[in-house]
């Protein structure tokens, strides 16, 4: 036989990613919540105050765009992986995939790439909306830094999403994702700045992953509350925790289904 024995992994990855993107785009539960929801929140919480300047001299509009940007990327990750994976388990897509030559790691990597693409689109739409409709202005380099940092720092939420996806069933996943992610975002000051939140929330915020995640974006504007290295350490710790939980839930499922 002269033909190659296996298909190139890159070919598999590209085809898989293309289909994942089509799938997400065609399911409004993903595409609308991923792309439109952050803008809707910004309209309510951000637009009315977008022209104001914070005490530290940073534009409040830019600060809130960074906050909702952090919310948007976490949203793509937690809901995309959480509900997406749980649904596929419910539909038993995993059985056929499992029997195919597609390596499970390529399958997951395609999901990660897809989520990064959606995050990039969500951030671009949100920031574009803020600039055009909200009249928020920052140098282009600042926006690029905000976007790059939010994409690069999203690993803890990928872990959290995978964990929810493998740990909860298809019916429970949306509820679990909401119950975890919405309070997490709120308590980290992503919707309403922390100084307007109750004391006990301000006390717990510095222990939450989304708080440190948002610092990546806030500090790009000059409104950070901690050195970049400290944010990254917290995020690395949370990544390790959530990915460990995700791998454990995945292995448990593997044993039950494919052992």
């Amino acid at each position, binding site marked *: 036989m002269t*033909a*190659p*024995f*296996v*298909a190139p992994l890159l*070919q*598999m990855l*590209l*085809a*898989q990613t293309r*289909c994942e993107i*089509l*799938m997400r785009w*065609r*399911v409004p539960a993903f595409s609308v919540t991923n792309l439109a929801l952050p803008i809707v929140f910004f309209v309510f919480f951000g637009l009315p105050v977008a022209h104001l300047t914070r005490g530290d001299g940073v534009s409040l509009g830019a600060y809130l765009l960074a906050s909702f940007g952090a919310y948007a990327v976490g949203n793509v990750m937690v809901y995309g992986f959480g509900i997406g994976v749980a649904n*596929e388990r419910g*539909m*038993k*897509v995993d*059985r*056929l995939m*499992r*029997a*195919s*030559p*597609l*390596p499970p790691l390529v399958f997951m990597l395609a999901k990660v790439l897809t989520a990064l693409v959606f995050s990039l689109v969500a951030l671009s739409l949100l920031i574009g909306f803020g600039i055009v409709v909200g009249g928020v202005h920052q140098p282009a380099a600042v926006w690029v830094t905000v976007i790059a940092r939010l994409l690069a720092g999203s690993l803890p939420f990928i872990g959290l999403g995978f964990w929810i996806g493998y740990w909860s069933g298809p019916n429970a996943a949306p509820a679990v994702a909401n119950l975890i992610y919405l309070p997490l975002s709120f308590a980290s000051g992503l919707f309403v700045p922390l100084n307007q939140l109750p004391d006990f929330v301000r006390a717990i915020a510095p222990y939450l992953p989304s708080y440190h995640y948002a610092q990546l974006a806030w500090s790009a504007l000059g409104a950070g509350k901690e050195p970049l290295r400290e944010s990254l350490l917290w995020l690395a710790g949370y990544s390790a925790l959530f990915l460990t939980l995700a791998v454990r839930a995945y292995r448990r499922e593997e044993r039950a289904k*494919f*052992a």
Partner: protein
Amino acid sequence: MTPVVELIAARKRFGDVEAVRGVDLTIAEGEMVALLGPNGAGKTTSIGLMLGLRRPTDGQARLFGHDPADRRARSRCGVMLQESGTTGVLTVRELVDLFRAYYPSPLPSERAIALAGLEAKAGARAWTLSGGERQRLYFALAVCGDPEALFLDEPTVGMDVETRRAVLESIRALSAGGKTIVLTTHYLEEADQLARRIIVIDHGVVIADATPREIKARIPSKRVSFSAGAPLSDAIFQGLAVQSLEVAGLRVRLLSHEPERVLKTLFERGVTVEDLEVTGADLEEAFLSLTARR
């Protein structure tokens, strides 16, 4: 030459249930094999072991000489499983193209879609397909990589007569083209039409491994029932080729693979037969009789 499939003293236990209880079998390149058995016999678990979807509790499974989970082995197999799903928002062609990308030298999409008879539905999203069409989509996904071996678990379930015939025709053509084909079915007729070798599995063990002709001779294929004109003594049935016999008052029910001879003998012995019915035996019943004799 390396066999396509090897199960060596394979056992699979799920909790308290032992679904496969020591199966030895080898399937060579180019064979067309049907795994036949009633529901719950262990057919699906056996296929799962062959494909590495399940790990044997004991014994060994090899696929093309590799661990069945090895990508080199998987890349030579196309698979159609029961109880598997696919993403409904993608179209038939998109899914076929996706699965083609998993294989080193796939068929053209149009060819795979045509083999499954889905030309008219190529642009339709998977969730809009009927049950039978969805089975054909899975068939297209199994063949689109142009693999050397096809594993088809109950391929014709839910298909109407017409599409079932078309898919069986495609399977036959693929076999004639040199593909190794392993399929499970609980229709003796289907196994008989397609396979040159039938492996009968029941209660997790191989109870027969032979040509369709040999198997048919051993499995009672017809159910005969009638009402006798007068009460019958056991002696009446002496020496008849009958696998299972129930007499309730005047009503008689029996299984046989030679119903004509049985009836002829009964007539000769002076039995009056009313309300005669001869039907294809339910395979589950037939297996009961086959296993009961063991």
